[in-house]
């Protein structure tokens, strides 16, 4: 098939409407008579509630209703957790708190009023009698005996313990030439999607139909869960996901507010809307990461690893959201990185704390693993006095060792880690960088180079490994006028699949990209789907589109053969047209082709297909014929559409190398980037511009974790980083020029050869940046620093050592 669009930097078809402000986010959808909801949220991290008095709030102007935990908790089912782990303790998570609150931001009551301001003001009129309880903030302390217990009936704060990995770890560590250990922290992060959450719900009593507009990544899974929570038939519930201003995993969830709004709409018979404020977003939308652990590494004198053990306490928060306990298991799967490590063990202790739940945040467990492995390799290099690149090379599996089985139980299908590494070394001129670093150090300048070679699990995933199915669906239709409609079950929310799926379809069908429309995010229009997360939309959802098109073309081929009166084998498809080949073409060549432009057909009626005497037919001709159904092969069903549910046989394993070069300002501890070079391999690339965009965003969020971001709760469980004044997301001026490049190793897991790229940046970049800062401070004996590495930390190291060293 001619590749006219695939592989090209096609501009996003989504952008004009977004740039012009013509897109519709949840808050842009205005329904008449809409009421607005505001939540009263707990100001204590842990307290018993002895009473909630809403009488004053009910008297406030504009207030229509106030609901408390007692009103709603019995009528709406618990907020679901889809992660199934052995012996997992699952607290009863109601949509509103009843007799206890477990974290700052825990919703207690919902005020419904005629406008947003009246609702918010009335929240202040509710009085809650709190009786404070001891607070559990520190995850490690939560696991200790004697800690206050959050969910008393469980007896302790340990939600689960899990041990995974293969190989004899004890023997591997015991027999190693050297053993190293290091405390490793992946701090809590806030996903901070630009658009906070938002829900609009409308109930039509006549039709008995509830429609919920929500800013989510998973409209169909949400529909199923809401139907169960609210107790209504799933086929009377419709979830619509309009434009979504970023998710990063924080909207891969089912939230209390979504169910509550649906239920309130049914109680009041009027539409209700809630748009999350940024403060609520920081308090009550899931956080990411939150792992505190220790690694033990065994290695030989040549730098090859014999074993890796990671004992980790995962800070789950007070409740499980959809995937909360499962995230650390992804860390366990990924602990081999892109290396041959014969023995690996992870021991996870998932603990409850008086904080909002952690859950999937861009990378979801894999950035944590990559950070652990990459820090381990750097520690080995420092211990043995080897170059960080050389240590990595010595631990890589060679290209002929694929498919490669890890001690974490995964099969890496393809990979050529040295190729990506070599390209990154060449692009950064690594040898020269090291020489320059040497000279800089002689001048007293603090320059550091950090290298990270990563692999990640993408295209989540085979259904066997997923809590709620890992396939994705697509329907491709050619309408009677020849326009192509794609319905995808993936629910893209900023990734640009309206463009990339149209590229695939336009090439495969030989039509103009402008003739393809991609529809998603409406459960009443689109067949069931899973959603967009885990770098899966193109690798799994795009493949579903591709195979649906192939199915559709099989039918079109038969129709074309029937109409042209030829044998199917004598037809070939090219440029959107089925043509007779070989002898039949020669014979048919004498018949002049009638040309009847569609425009000449009577406007009021569908044009008749002009098939008489033709030796080729366009898809448009065939689509019309298929819908008019007068000239179809016997027993063929009319219409021209195909639906396919694609089940991947494995994950995909994109990989790459990131190199960061930083210089430290001695007087201020400020970290300045000199270079940032990345080579990523996400398999075949549909649209390089979209891939670059994903890498850019990922690196920026990784940079946030490495240097700036950290959710801080004080010892009373109060959220100190409650606004964007206190929680430091990277600003444009903090971001270096990113020198991006690629290697392209297609995966055999799907026919497109696509692996996925949504999370690569956050996975590859964090360790590279940390390594660069550590390397810059190596002359001070630094081998590791905890994130976020703040100027203060750096300055203390530099200034203490400088004054101590008598400079």
């Amino acid at each position: 098939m001619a590749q006219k669009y695939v592989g090209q930097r096609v501009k996003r078809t989504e952008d004009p409407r977004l740039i012009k402000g013509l897109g519709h986010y949840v808050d842009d959808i205005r329904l008449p008579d809409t009421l607005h909801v505001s939540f009263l949220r707990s100001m204590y991290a842990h307290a018993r509630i002895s009473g909630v008095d809403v009488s004053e709030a009910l008297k406030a102007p504009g207030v229509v209703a106030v609901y408390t935990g007692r009103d709603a908790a019995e009528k709406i089912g618990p907020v679901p957790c889809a992660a199934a782990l052995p012996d997992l303790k699952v607290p009863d998570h109601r949509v509103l708190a009843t007799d206890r609150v477990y974290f700052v931001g825990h919703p207690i009551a919902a005020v419904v009023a005629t406008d947003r301001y009246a609702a918010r003001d009335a929240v202040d009129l509710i009085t809650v009698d709190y009786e404070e309880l001891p607070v559990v903030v520190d995850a490690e302390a939560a696991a200790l005996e004697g800690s206050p217990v959050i969910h008393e009936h469980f007896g302790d704060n340990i939600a689960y313990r899990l041990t995974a990995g293969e190989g004899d770890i004890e023997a591997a560590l015991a027999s190693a030439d050297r053993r190293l250990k290091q405390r490793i922290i992946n701090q809590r992060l806030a996903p901070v999607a630009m658009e906070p959450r938002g829900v609009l719900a409308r109930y039509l009593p006549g039709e008995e139909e509830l429609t919920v507009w929500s800013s989510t990544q998973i409209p169909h899974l949400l529909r199923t869960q809401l139907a169960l929570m609210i107790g209504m038939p799933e086929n009377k519930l419709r979830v619509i996901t309009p434009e979504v201003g970023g998710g990063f995993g924080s909207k891969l969830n089912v939230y209390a507010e979504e169910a509550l709004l649906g239920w309130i709409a049914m109680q009041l018979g009027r539409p209700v809307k809630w748009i999350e404020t940024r403060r609520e977003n920081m308090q009550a939308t899931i956080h990411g990461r939150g792992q505190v652990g220790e690694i033990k590494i065994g290695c030989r004198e040549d730098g090859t690893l014999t074993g890796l053990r990671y004992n980790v306490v995962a800070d789950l928060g007070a409740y499980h959201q959809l995937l909360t306990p499962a995230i650390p298991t992804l860390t366990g799967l990924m602990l081999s990185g892109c290396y041959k490590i014969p023995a690996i063990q992870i021991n996870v202790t998932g603990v409850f704390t008086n904080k909002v739940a952690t859950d999937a945040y861009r990378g979801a467990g894999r950035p944590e693993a990559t950070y652990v492995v990459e820090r381990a390799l750097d520690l080995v290099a420092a211990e043995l006095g080897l170059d960080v690149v050389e240590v990595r090379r010595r631990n890589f599996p060679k290209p002929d060792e694929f498919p490669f089985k890890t001690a974490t139980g995964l099969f890496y299908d393809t990979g050529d880690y040295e190729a990506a590494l070599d390209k990154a070394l060449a692009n950064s001129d690594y040898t020269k960088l090291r020489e320059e670093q040497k000279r800089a150090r002689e001048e007293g300048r603090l320059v550091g180079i950090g290298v990270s070679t990563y692999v990640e699990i993408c295209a989540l995933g085979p259904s066997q490994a997923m809590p709620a199915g890992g396939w994705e669906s697509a329907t491709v239709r050619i309408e009677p006028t020849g326009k192509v409609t794609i319905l995808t079950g993936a629910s893209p929310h900023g990734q640009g699949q309206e463009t990339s799926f149209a590229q695939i379809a336009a090439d495969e069908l030989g039509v103009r990209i402008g003739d393809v429309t991609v529809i998603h995010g409406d459960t009443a229009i689109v067949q069931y789907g899973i959603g967009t997360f885990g770098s899966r939309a193109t690798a799994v959802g795009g493949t579903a589109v591709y195979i649906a098109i192939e199915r559709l073309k099989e039918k079109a081929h038969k129709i074309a053969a029937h109409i042209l009166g030829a044998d199917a084998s004598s037809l070939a498809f090219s440029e959107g047209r089925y043509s007779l080949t070989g002898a039949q073409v020669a014979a048919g060549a004498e018949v002049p082709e009638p040309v009847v432009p569609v425009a000449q057909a009577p406007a009021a009626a569908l044009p008749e297909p002009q098939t008489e005497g033709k030796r080729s037919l366009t898809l448009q001709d065939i689509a019309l014929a298929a819908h008019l159904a007068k000239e179809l092969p016997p027993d063929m069903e009319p219409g021209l559409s195909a639906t396919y549910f694609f089940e991947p046989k494995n994950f995909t394993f994109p990989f790459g190398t990131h190199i960061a070069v930083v210089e430290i300002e001695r007087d201020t501890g400020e970290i300045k980037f000199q270079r940032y070079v990345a080579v990523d391999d996400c398999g075949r690339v549909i649209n390089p511009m979209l891939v670059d965009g994903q890498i850019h965003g990922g690196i920026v969020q990784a940079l946030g974790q490495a240097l700036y971001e950290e959710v801080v709760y004080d010892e009373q469980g109060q959220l100190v980083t409650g606004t964007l004044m206190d929680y430091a997301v990277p600003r444009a001026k903090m971001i270096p020029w990113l020198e991006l490049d690629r290697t392209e190793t297609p995966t055999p897991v799907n026919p497109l050869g696509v692996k996925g790229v949504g999370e690569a940046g956050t996975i590859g970049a964090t360790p590279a940046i940390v390594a660069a800062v550590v390397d810059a401070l190596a002359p001070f004996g630094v081998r590791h620093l905890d994130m976020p590495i703040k100027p203060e930390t750096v300055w203390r190291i530099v200034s203490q050592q400088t004054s101590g060293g008598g400079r």
Partner: protein
Amino acid sequence: MKIEGTHELRAARERVWQSLVDPSVLQRCIPGCERLEQTGENSYSTILRAGVGSIKGVFQGNVRLEDLRPPAHYRLVVDGKGQPGFLKGAGELELEEMGEGLTVIKYAGDVQVGGTIASVGQRMIQGAAKMMASQFFTALEAEAQTQAGEPPPQHGFFRTALRWLSGLLRRIMRGSK
């Protein structure tokens, strides 16, 4: 969160002490204090309008004086709740006579805040508390300088600011000598 500081008052220690235990004086001097009513020996209920930056609101709470050692020391225990959150804390006040008509108050306390004021204002609270302490002691100085029988001084924001500024100038002048 630790809050501490010292403040110099141009008034005799005895007078300062009397002002510090007089609920009507305290009510006039505490910025934003709308009510201070005695509920028992050395305990009061209060309504306070206060805030940090854009986070403002009304707090209802209790104030208790403990460990009174006139005229040198007491311990202040506060807890309050309102729409912007809650605060509770305790602190020690030490009064030292630094010569004729000059008293230095040292204060040191530990305060916990919760709710919106914690998530939005925490990093500004120490600054705000210092400012409130400054306002309070400046007003208290004026009260302590008032002779018996005189009407109590006026304290509005600008008056207090002017007094604070003139006190600052005095100290600077003295320091430069």
